[in-house]
């Protein structure tokens, strides 16, 4: 490959950016500018930093991220249509020594699988959920999701989401933070370098609380879907900043290790 020569390091050079080994060296099927790639990398980096790659079981969900098992070299179970937290519950109770996480989108988690995630959180299952919120059903062609913003046009609300007809977008990080068994619930964004660094810390914390046996770890990552938003990737990032973050405020909503939380 042509790039290999350019990657050769001189004696006084070093890599300023390490790519985690657990992230499979393979082009993803995601659209240009899709933030799933960043989210995958953050999870991979955190698993490597914690040294738990060999002891991790991933529960994949439905949506574009269904193929996470092709991109992360960890053992995986596939549990489509929102049932990932229920399957993860079984996996964790069967193998309490393993780190178990699910990776779910907003159509999967906030709509089809709302009951599963709420009860898993309320029971305080020692699992981690990485929730990628891009305000649409991505894989199926951009239908309205529970998180679709007011006025946002999708294929199933071509005139824009209407508050009276479809209700307000659902804020999952706050809802999860209100449940009893939750040890950590936070929302971060993947739109800028600063936010990505903060997001990594949030992902790490969500895994840490599981490893320490404190309870349920939940992290919501605001991400872009340029294809279904009908805009280019740069504009999609601007939209996250200008439209999504004002409605979905970033921050930690519950953290039992700090001794305080929203609830």
């Amino acid at each position, binding site marked *: 490959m*042509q790039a290999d020569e350019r*990657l050769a390091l001189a004696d006084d050079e070093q890599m300023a950016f390490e790519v985690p080994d657990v992230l499979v060296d393979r*082009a*993803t099927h995601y659209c240009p500018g899709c933030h799933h790639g*960043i989210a995958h990398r953050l999870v991979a980096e955190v698993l490597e930093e914690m040294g738990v790659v060999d002891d991790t079981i991933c529960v994949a969900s439905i949506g574009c991220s269904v193929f996470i098992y092709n991109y992360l070299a960890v053992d995986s179970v596939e549990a489509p249509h929102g049932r990932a937290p229920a399957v993860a519950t079984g996996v964790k109770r069967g193998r309490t020594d393993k780190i178990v996480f699910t990776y779910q989108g907003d159509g999967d988690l906030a709509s089809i699988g709302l009951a599963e995630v709420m009860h898993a959180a309320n029971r305080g299952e020692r699992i981690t959920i990485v929730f990628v919120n891009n305000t649409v059903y991505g894989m199926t062609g951009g239908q309205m999701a529970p998180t679709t913003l007011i006025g946002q046009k999708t294929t199933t609300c071509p005139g824009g989401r209407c508050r009276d007809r479809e209700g307000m977008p659902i804020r999952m990080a706050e809802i999860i933070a209100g449940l009893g068994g939750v040890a950590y619930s936070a929302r971060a964004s993947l739109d800028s370098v600063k936010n990505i660094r903060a997001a990594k810390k949030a992902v790490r914390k969500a895994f840490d609380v599981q490893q320490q046996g404190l309870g349920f770890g939940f992290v919501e990552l605001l991400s872009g879907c340029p294809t279904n938003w009908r805009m280019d990737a*740069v504009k999609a990032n601007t939209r996250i900043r200008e439209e999504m973050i004002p409605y979905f405020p970033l921050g930690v909503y519950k953290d039992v290790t700090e001794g305080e939380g929203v609830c």
Partner: protein
Amino acid sequence: MSRVVFLDERCKGCLLCTTVCPKGIIVQSSRFNRQGYKVAEVPADAMKDCTGCASCALICPDVAIRVIKSRKAKKAGKE
């Protein structure tokens, strides 16, 4: 001196890297890769301005960017 390497076949031409470069030296090239995406690049004469901060690599959704810096500049942009 630092440099960045774009893995052309991994780049999807989303250009997010161009928005985060503090020096603004990343541009879209006129080259297409095998998938038909117009890849990003740093023109050879602009590479000297690279600080090795790795912001581009951090935001790249396709892990298509490698950042290499000299050891002396280690502290400057270390993550």
